[in-house]
């Protein structure tokens, strides 16, 4: 922790921080439970919300000071896509990866009757294409939000299998809590969702994971810490302390013991309210694709700290914006895109915090995306993760 004398006093010390019932809320919950917020002079109340729309609306009207947001949300809110308009920004990403695509066991069985074989994510997508070619009906897949990495990852996976999304897939949105029930009742055939919901489907024996988010895009952006422009302008010192505390919690989550402990904490009624066996697999990286199968080791299922996980890359904002405008069927001019990205994604705020913590961070805002099969480094001492995309074989 930086010496407190180097930090300006917080403008306010009572903070309402919104989050969703997801495993990657871990850094926020740890910062609260381990007293990190308190060390930074902040009395933080964590507010569990039921929809991304709620988090956004409450941020915009000031009922929340800050919130865990889907990475596309600051920009889509600035555009007023789908819901209300508002000026949101992020100076800290809350982690990489964390999602998975699950298909109903019924559909998996249709794709291949060799239930013992572990197929690669690409093989699964190709099997699905073959199945759809012989099927009169499209299948229905769900994500938790139209503008989310879940939607983008699901599309990438389907495209890798050569599937015509518009023709063969009915893509809908459902709340995470309704996913498993809808899958069990056959309302949907599969979904892409953040943990723990795929693990819940696997453990309940209703679905099998066919691809983790990491399989589709190694170390993809996922959630960010969002505040309004107005709130940031009025509370720069509070915002800085908030980021510093969460960054410390992210760093603490490098430790496997810490991850096991937070899974127990998060299982409590006030947080995820689920048995810890649903929360542990993705956090420890010993992940099960099917009930009773051997664990597949995915150490980077959630990355909270290494690989500059907190750095809000503008090159990723650009990618997200391009996908969003495609979905909206709306062209965004280069100047418009530039101004949205500069307004909403603030790597300068990350650097401010990183300097105070004495940790290295990139001096550039953009990097090449989806060109690295392995770890790589920039600016001599900064290690970044692989960023490979799944693609047709």
């Amino acid at each position: 922790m930086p010496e407190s004398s180097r930090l300006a006093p917080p403008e306010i010390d009572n903070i309402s921080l919104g989050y969703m019932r997801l495993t990657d809320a871990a850094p926020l919950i740890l910062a609260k439970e381990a007293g990190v917020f308190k060390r930074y002079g902040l009395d933080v109340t964590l507010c569990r919300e039921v929809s991304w729309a709620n988090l956004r609306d409450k941020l915009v009207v000031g009922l929340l000071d800050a919130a865990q947001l889907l990475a596309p949300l600051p920009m889509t809110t600035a555009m007023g896509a789908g819901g209300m308009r508002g000026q949101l920004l992020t100076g800290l990403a809350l982690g990489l990866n964390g999602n998975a695509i699950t298909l109903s066991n019924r559909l998996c069985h249709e794709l291949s009757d060799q239930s013992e074989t572990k197929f690669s994510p690409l093989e699964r997508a190709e099997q699905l294409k073959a199945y759809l070619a012989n099927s009169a009906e499209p299948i229905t897949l769900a994500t938790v939000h139209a503008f989310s990495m879940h939607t983008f990852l699901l599309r990438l996976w389907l495209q890798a299998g050569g599937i015509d999304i518009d023709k063969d897939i009915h893509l809908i949105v459902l709340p995470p809590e309704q996913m498993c029930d809808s899958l069990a009742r056959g309302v949907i055939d599969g979904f892409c969702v953040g943990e723990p919901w795929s693990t819940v489907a696997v453990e309940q024996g209703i679905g099998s994971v066919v691809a983790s988010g990491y399989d589709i895009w190694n170390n993809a952006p996922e959630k960010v810490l969002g505040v309004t422009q107005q709130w940031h302008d009025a509370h720069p010192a509070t915002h800085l302390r908030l980021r510093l505390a969460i960054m410390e919690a992210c760093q603490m989550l490098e430790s496997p013991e810490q991850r096991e402990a937070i899974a127990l904490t998060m299982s409590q009624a006030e947080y995820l309210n689920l048995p810890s066996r649903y929360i542990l697999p993705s956090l420890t990286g010993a992940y099960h694709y099917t009930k009773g199968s051997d664990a597949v080791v995915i150490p980077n299922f959630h990355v909270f700290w290494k690989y500059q996980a907190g750095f809000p890359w503008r090159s990723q904002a650009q990618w997200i914006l391009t996908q969003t405008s495609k979905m909206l069927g709306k062209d965004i001019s280069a100047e418009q895109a530039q101004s949205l990205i500069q307004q909403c994604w603030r790597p300068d705020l990350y650097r401010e915090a990183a300097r105070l913590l004495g940790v290295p961070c990139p001096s550039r805002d953009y990097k090449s995306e989806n060109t690295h099969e392995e770890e790589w480094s920039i600016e001599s001492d900064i290690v970044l993760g692989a960023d490979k995309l799944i693609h047709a074989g």
Partner: protein
Amino acid sequence: MKEVKASAAIRVMLVDDHSERAQLVEDGLVSAGFEVISVISSAAGLLFQIEQHRPDVVIIDLQSPDRDVLESLAIVNQHNPTAMVMFGQEDDPDYIRHAVSAGISTYLTDGINPARVRPIIEVAMAQFRSFQGLREELVTARAQLESRSLVEKAKALLMTQKNLNENEAHQLLTKLAMDNNQRLGDVAHTVVSTLSAFETRK
């Protein structure tokens, strides 16, 4: 734009998990002359319900997880030919504040004139607020009842253990409350916990 809709009645769908409140809102809307075509709870398959009923307006409890589902309908595609958009995103920033504090959110089918929907939202907001008010009254009433029974218990303990009559016990409690600048219920609570501990030790 759908000109046809301009003259026809606006068809309202309500999404609320509190059935009593939904009833209150429905009654309010119907008696104000609006057409409520469907009242559903979350997890009742909102997309299917919308496809079937084709509402012009959906009024939804802010605490319903189905809001993200509704917002996905802003994207027009083959499966969703008519967009639904959130009400009040452009003009009036205060509206959103009011709606959020009343606890509702409203979505309209593209082409419906927002001005015609405004009175519907006003009624729904008023009903949400009055439901909230009723609930707060209930909570207050319950708290008052609890405080009263605590006072009775404290008096009874004082009477048996300190040999006071009821009036003296009451006066003692009132004096303690005034001296300590506390509410009667709080003083009664302290007295009850102290004296009953004493009683168990005996």
